[in-house]
């Protein structure tokens, strides 16, 4: 795989293209955010309206599951959505590959989600109450809970990696076989699929965190697990 080849090394650690693209993406997002939020006013222009719309939409989506924790979860879940969506779309550009087409990235994101679920759950209910829910409704359910935790984390990583990698590979194969402009419909599908996968990853993260928090809001929306 191309992503396994290090472009350069730092202190003996090989820096792959995935990391370099990720750094570039981080730099662009940070610079854009800084430039766009330097002079925010009460009567917004077009750029500020788009920014407020994006942030507001993310906060509203979080508030539908966890009304009391929307502000707390906004940076984490919002960054997941923005990073994955843009990272998925980067594969469209020539000579670039999506960081999410690298299993190391999707596994890293899945591990972060796995840890964040426990972090927010313990922070909300306390360690004893949080661990007790693994024994509910019966201690026999503990192995199933553990398997569920592992399988959904693996599913998060593999689903995102598989979709993005397969789309890029399909576009490349069609380009090689059919020639210039033929893979355009596949690229259109790539855009849609990239946004959908980002949405699915973020919503599943939100559902997992809500389940871990065991808050009243999570209990009011048990169907969120099926999203």
């Amino acid at each position, binding site marked *: *795989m191309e*992503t*396994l080849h*290090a472009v350069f090394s730092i202190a003996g*650690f*090989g*820096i*792959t293209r*995935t*990391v370099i693209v*990720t*750094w570039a993406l*981080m730099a662009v*997002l*940070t610079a854009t*955010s*800084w430039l*766009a*939020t330097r002079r*925010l*006013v*009460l009567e*917004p222009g077009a750029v*500020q309206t788009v*920014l*407020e719309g994006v*942030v*507001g939409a993310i*906060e509203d989506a979080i508030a539908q599951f966890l009304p009391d924790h929307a*502000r707390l979860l*906004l*940076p*984490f879940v*919002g*960054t997941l959505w*923005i*990073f994955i969506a843009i990272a998925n779309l980067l594969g469209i550009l020539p000579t670039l590959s999506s*960081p999410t087409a*690298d*299993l*190391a*990235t999707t*596994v*890293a*994101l899945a*591990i*972060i989600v796995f840890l964040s679920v426990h972090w927010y759950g313990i922070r909300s209910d306390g360690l004893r109450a949080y661990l007790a829910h693994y024994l509910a409704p019966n201690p026999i359910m503990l192995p199933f809970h553990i398997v569920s935790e592992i399988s959904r984390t693996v599913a998060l990583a593999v689903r995102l*990696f598989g979709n993005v990698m397969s789309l890029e590979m399909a576009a490349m194969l069609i380009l090689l076989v059919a020639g210039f402009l033929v893979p355009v419909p596949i690229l259109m599908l790539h855009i849609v699929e990239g946004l959908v996968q980002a949405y699915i990853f973020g919503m599943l993260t939100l559902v997992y965190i809500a389940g871990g928090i065991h808050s009243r809001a999570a209990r009011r929306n048990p169907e969120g697990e099926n999203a």
Partner: protein
Amino acid sequence: MQVDMTTFVLQIVNFLVLVWLLKRFLYRPVLAVIARRRAAIDAALGEARDAEARARDLRAEYETKLANWATESADAHAHLAEELAAERERRIAQIDAAAAAEQERNASLHSRREAEMCHAAERDALEAAAGFAARLLERLSGPELDERLVTVALEDLATLSAEESGKLREAATHTDARIVLTTPRPLTGEQRDRLVAGLRSALGRDLPCDEQVQPRLLGGVRIAIGPWLLAASLQDELAYFRLGLTRAG
């Protein structure tokens, strides 16, 4: 499907750093401006509510003032109506008093005019009566009437009061005192003697006697002694008659 551990660890670090960066440069400023806008909107809504409350208070105050003004206007109207009624009554009373005074004055003037007219009519009637009596006496005058009037003069002379008798005697005491007998026609001897005898009796002495004839006396005799005068002629009686009528009128 291989996972490069270095990439895996760096991607974890990269994502956490990106979370911090976006929280610092995107979420926090955008949420802050949204919060400021909401605060401004809440402040504007609060001001609008305050303004509405003030407007409601002002409206209530205005309506109260309107009600008070309406009450005061009604009171003032009623007071004005009372004043107008009182003024009308006063002026009607004044007009009635003036009309009554005018009526009384007219009645007084009318009665005075009537009295004057009656007096003028009486005066005319008396003038006519005096003229009629003068013409009648002028036709009845003659020696017989002279004789009768001389007799009346002697009777009056004999029945003088003590005061008149004193005045007669005092007039007769003057050194140049004379008796003047004025008649419309010459006296007869018998008439002269009777008059001289009567005067001597009244005066208690004799005085020289003169005689004068004046036809305008119509009849009778006029006896004058100095300032004392005894009128027993028709002319003097008619003059007394006119004078008495004039004083009576």
